[in-house]
């Protein structure tokens, strides 16, 4: 994202790759991914199932070890850190998981779920201090202090997601990866959590990588968007630009496929044919070419590099600018 380099960058990803060795062969989950996240912004990461969103989010925190490339957080090369240094760094970077039902230990009380994060990172000198901190956190995410002694199963999905957010906030991180943090929620509850994330973001000047598959949620919440397809960035830029004039054929197809809650919406839909190919043997050249209506021989030969269309938009398509 050309424009973002000039701003105050909190996190920069350069040429990041991740290959999983499996019995069936090498899974190329991420390949040569580059983008950066300006301090204080919310960047949306979208793409079909299996495109590598979760793997990318985890690589940023080194919960999954990248196979190559660099991740620079506030100027520090994370991949060069030893495990003790990385642990200290994780105090500044947190992740909220998709599933509010399985990401909380069912046998721990809320007090201990959050307290554990505080102890791990040495926050709060005494038990009572940690207890006060925990109560304050719960209040901040819209729960009550008397929820402290309850177990996760006693909460609704939205409440559990709030607990997950409180746990992530406990260590006062600067950066949060929210991996499908609202995807499992009903829309009325999802709206509560989106408002909460907005408030927290302002109050705590958080920077967020927001992974989601609901494109209207991403459009609402994010300033910048990164679109992944089969482990590669195909387009990135400001939300406004991408939604108004998507440049990459995949972004266009993705946006036109998203259902709009308006029976009178004009749908000039280009239904994308076929399915995402296997990451075990991605297509040569442009990974999207097997489903792209613009593809020709060149697309099978050459891996498209970033084409900067404007300060707001970069497309990784050989025909960028002419289609």
């Amino acid at each position, binding site marked *: 994202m050309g424009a973002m380099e000039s701003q105050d960058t909190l996190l920069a990803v350069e040429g990041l790759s991740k290959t999983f060795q499996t019995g069936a062969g090498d899974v190329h989950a991420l390949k040569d991914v580059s983008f950066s996240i300006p301090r204080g912004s919310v960047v949306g990461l979208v793409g079909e*199932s299996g495109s590598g969103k979760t793997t990318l989010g985890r690589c940023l925190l080194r919960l999954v070890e990248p196979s190559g490339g660099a991740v620079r957080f506030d100027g520090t090369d994370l991949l060069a850190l030893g495990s003790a240094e990385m642990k200290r760094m994780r105090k500044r970077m947190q992740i909220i998981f998709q599933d509010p039902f399985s990401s909380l230990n069912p046998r721990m009380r809320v007090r201990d779920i959050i307290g554990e994060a505080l102890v791990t990172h040495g926050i709060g000198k005494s038990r009572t201090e940690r207890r006060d901190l925990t109560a304050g956190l719960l209040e901040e995410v819209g729960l009550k202090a008397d929820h402290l002694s309850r177990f996760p199963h006693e909460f609704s999905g939205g409440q559990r997601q709030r607990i997950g957010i409180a746990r992530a906030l406990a260590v006062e991180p600067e950066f949060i990866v929210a991996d499908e943090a609202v995807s499992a929620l009903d829309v009325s509850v*999802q709206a509560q959590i989106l408002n909460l994330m907005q408030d927290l973001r302002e109050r705590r000047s958080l920077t967020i990588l927001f992974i989601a598959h609901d494109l209207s949620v991403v459009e609402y919440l994010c300033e910048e968007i990164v679109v992944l397809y089969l482990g590669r960035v195909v387009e990135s830029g400001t939300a406004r630009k991408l939604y108004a004039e998507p440049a990459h054929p995949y972004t266009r197809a993705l946006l036109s496929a998203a259902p709009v809650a308006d029976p009178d919406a004009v749908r000039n839909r280009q*239904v994308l044919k076929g399915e995402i190919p296997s990451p075990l043997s991605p297509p040569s050249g442009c990974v999207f070419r097997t489903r792209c209506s613009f593809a020709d021989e060149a697309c099978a030969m050459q891996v498209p590099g970033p084409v900067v269309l404007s300060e707001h938009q970069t497309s990784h398509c050989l025909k960028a600018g002419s289609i």
Partner: protein
Amino acid sequence: MVDAPAISRTEAPAALAKDIVLEAQNLSTHFVYKTRTAKAVRDVSFTLQKGRTLAIVGESGSGKSVTSLSAMRLLGPTGEIAGGSILYRKRDGTVVDLARQSQAAMRQIRGREISMIFQEPMTSLNPLFTIGDQIGEMLLLHERLAAPDIRRRVIEMLNLVEIPGAERRLDDYPHQMSGGMRQRVMIAMALICRPALLIADEPTTALDVTIQAQILDLIRRLQRELAMSVLFITHDMGVVAEVADEVAVMYAGEVVEQAPVRDIFAHPRHPYTLGLLASIPNVRRDFDAAGARRRLVPIPGTVPSLYAMPPGCAFAPRCPYAVPPCGSPVHLERIAPKHLSRCIRAGEL
């Protein structure tokens, strides 16, 4: 308030208006356990016109699946229809109450008259059998066909649902297929006996939007070609806007509103529907002229527990319009010729 008759109080009529293929009247479905009874569906009424699509929309736990399983009479050992009726017009024109059919009669109805696509494809596909055998099984049950004829019909059906290389895929097992392909297999199984009514329970919820678009296109095309009526269950108002002619909105086991799709979006007449629509992010509405983001307007609170339903309107504890009379039972009333609402203040909304 318009003084048309209240649906919930009328007795079940023996006949069905002639353009209606399915009508639930005051349907209640319970799950009975030793210590408690879960009243999952309460006093539900809706109508589906022949050849049209009725979407049932509602949040998790609102009773959408139980409503459709009631129509199929697949409620399991603990489930029972505790009241009301589900009238269905068969192909030959006779009207039956699905709620009162014997299981033997239901076996004749399922597959040929009414077919269902279930919410979880992996639980309804048998992992041990090839998809060809599973689709063929449906034909074997209903039509006495020879093996080569079955094979031909199955291949025809796989082609119809656009599974590439049908002849080869016939011998695949479910786990060898992607989610989108499995959903096509489910559709093939549901449609192989050419049902008149298709019940599709969240057929695209687990799929990516690009695959969802393919499947929605497919269902629409098959509906046209096979002249089917469709009961389409979803929690996604975007999908509703795309597929529905009519919409029934469910909340906490009740239908709270039914109307043509445009009226539901343009003039919702129940506070829950209003809240649902306001909760969906929409940049045209949620950003002001200067480009600043407005806060969303969520519905406060959470859905009541099945075991602690409010005595009156089930939505009252979360409703910004609630007044003391909302504490007494509220019924689904006709507030305009094609619009029903279960809210005493519907006229003011």
